[in-house]
């Protein structure tokens, strides 16, 4: 190469071009997103996360949950072809091919996530690998579950609710304490089959960090309409 200024300018260009094209452009598009209402008069979403949930967000980061769990329910456009049994009006059922987003079909979410869902996240945790299920809408699933302690018990020992799970136990987020005059209202109700039970007269109580983490997880809920995406479409 004879003209070295071309080399230097070229090296600068190959860095600046994608930086402008990808980062500046996406920042211009999404850097100032505000909460929005699906229709005029509807409540605006998303809601800012509360203090406890924000602490839980920090716990989620510190525990490295992001290396196994994504928070990006795939959109409706991520369609796959499925054979689905469809019931006709006359009562007969037939198998018909339908296109559906696998995350929605699996019941992980009711709609795909959009950029506006993340505007209050101080650090978006989209993740890159699904060793475990997607957690982008786990709050909606947790709220729908009758067992309100599900998440806490799952954190204490994943084998209780999901035998065979490869999730590490987070027992260090719980303390074992002697039962006082009255059992603590927060104490975990562990099944008899649980091998890691506290000794008799003791109970397992979640620490503040466990409660914050669960508050954060329950807040991961995109069960609302936005201008760009409506449920029940």
């Amino acid at each position, binding site marked *: *190469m004879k003209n070295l200024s071309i080399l*230097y300018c070229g090296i600068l260009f190959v860095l600046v071009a994608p930086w402008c094209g*990808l980062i500046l452009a*996406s920042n211009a598009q999404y850097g100032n997103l505000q909460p929005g209402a699906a229709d005029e008069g509807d409540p605006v979403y998303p809601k800012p996360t509360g203090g406890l949930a924000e602490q839980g967000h920090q716990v989620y980061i510190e*525990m490295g949950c992001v290396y196994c769990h994504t928070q990006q329910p795939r959109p409706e456009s991520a369609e796959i072809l499925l054979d689905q049994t469809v019931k006709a009006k006359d009562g007969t059922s037939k198998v018909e091919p339908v296109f559906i987003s696998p995350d929605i079909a699996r019941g992980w979410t009711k709609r795909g996530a959009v950029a506006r869902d993340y505007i209050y996240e101080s650090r978006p945790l989209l993740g890159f690998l699904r060793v475990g299920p997607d957690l982008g809408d786990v709050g909606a699933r947790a709220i729908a579950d009758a067992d309100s302690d599900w998440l806490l018990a799952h954190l204490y020992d994943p084998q209780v609710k999901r035998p065979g799970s490869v999730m590490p136990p987070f027992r260090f987020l719980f303390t074992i304490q002697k039962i006082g005059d009255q059992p603590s209202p927060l104490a975990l109700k562990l099944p008899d089959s649980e091998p890691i039970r506290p000794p008799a007269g003791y109970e397992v109580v979640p620490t503040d960090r466990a409660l914050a983490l669960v508050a954060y997880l329950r807040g991961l809920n995109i069960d609302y309409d936005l201008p760009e995406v409506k449920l029940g479409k």
Partner: protein
Amino acid sequence: MCPCESLVKEIDPRPDATQSEPVQLGQIDASLRGPVALFFWKALGWLFLGTILALVSAVKLVNPEFLGGHEFFTYGRFFAAAMDALIYGWGCQAVFAVALWLMARLCRTQVKHLGVLYVAWAFWNLAVLWGIACIFIDGPTGMPGLDMPPQVAPLMGFSYVMIAMWGVLCFHFRAPGPVYVSQWFLLAALLLFPWMAFTAEMAIFYAPSRGVVQSVVNAWYVSNLLWLWFAPVALAVVYYLLPKILGRPIFGYYLSLIVFWSLLFLGGWAGAHYLVYSPVPVWLQTVGIVGNVVLIVPVLVASLNLLVTAAQEPRGVLNSAVLRFAVFGAAAMAVAGFVGAWASVRSVSITVNLTQFTLGHTLNLFYAFFSMVMFAAMYYILPRVLNREWPSAILVKAHFWASALGITALVLAMYVFGLHQGAQMNNPEIDFMEIVKGSGFLNEVQLAAVALIAAGQLVFMANFGWMAAGAAWECGVNFLKQLGLYPVGWRLP
């Protein structure tokens, strides 16, 4: 003399022009003996540590109760620490050693003021150690590839400038004559890395962008690390070693200009393919896909350049331990280029993205391509720098086969199982727990492959340690002889 002039004279890396060329080359090698050996030694240490951390996280996927009792040892922290030990401990330091030596050799310059390099070496390692300790104690940052806390970054940046400036200085004061393609690649990598690291740190930690823009920056940075930092240096090494050892020019050398510009131009755009179907702008995902597909051009042309040159002299490649590593790496790059282009297309990406397939592709580039080429460079450079032969040829062979078989098994398993898992995940009739249990076999294959890779590294470290100990002994003897303290007639047992 004005101070500027004296500074320029002080750092002027041009060798003594009155000497003959072999003497000059010897001086260049001798001038970098300490820093190159130290960077390689610490790099290998981090590589082994990172592999052991990866091994522990693989064990934890088979048995989640393993080391499960304390938050320091939870899976996410091991995984993050392994990743950063490999990127910043091993990858970056191997790049430093290779880039400085190769640049000095090709520019016919020698690095002066090694004290600066030693200090920068110490602080870089301190920064990595501090960062990894923070990951274990306080937890990672949640941004894969940038898992160390942001306060480590200034220390690393300062050390980086102290190290990389010698490469740029060598290029500036190079001997007259044409510039070889390896020099372009090295210069580009040395200039690009600080900018992308600085931009990513700023846009994520110091002046956080809103919402998913941070994720875009993260994906851009990780892709840049692979294609604009590790890949150019590895290519520089293979472009240097093949003609040097085989004694024949690169086949179609004029094409290397296309490789250089197309790789650099496309590498920066390819990042968004990690985000296909995620909540980022759709046009951005499309740009990432296009970038990845067109990346086939540099990959194809580079593998044409390199693999055809190697194929013209197959015996020479088989007989040279250095070239076996280098050609394995070049072939792995070709595979990674094609697989990456295929997998980034939307209809495939819906199956393979967010599975082990993507991680396998990263490992294909990082270990099977970059790390194997760095091993080749170490096998070539270290004897010249330390002025000694490798003590054991059997250990070199053992290292090659353990690494080659281990990484091939690992990457293949992750590709095949990633496809399988992705297909299962897209079928809502298969319960998620079934998929998790079905990955048990993959986890066991991963465990065995990583253990094999670690064993290979141990063999390499033994060989290197043996050689370095010999060099240190010789150095000590010479020192004693100079002082007149060495008894005449003493010999090594």
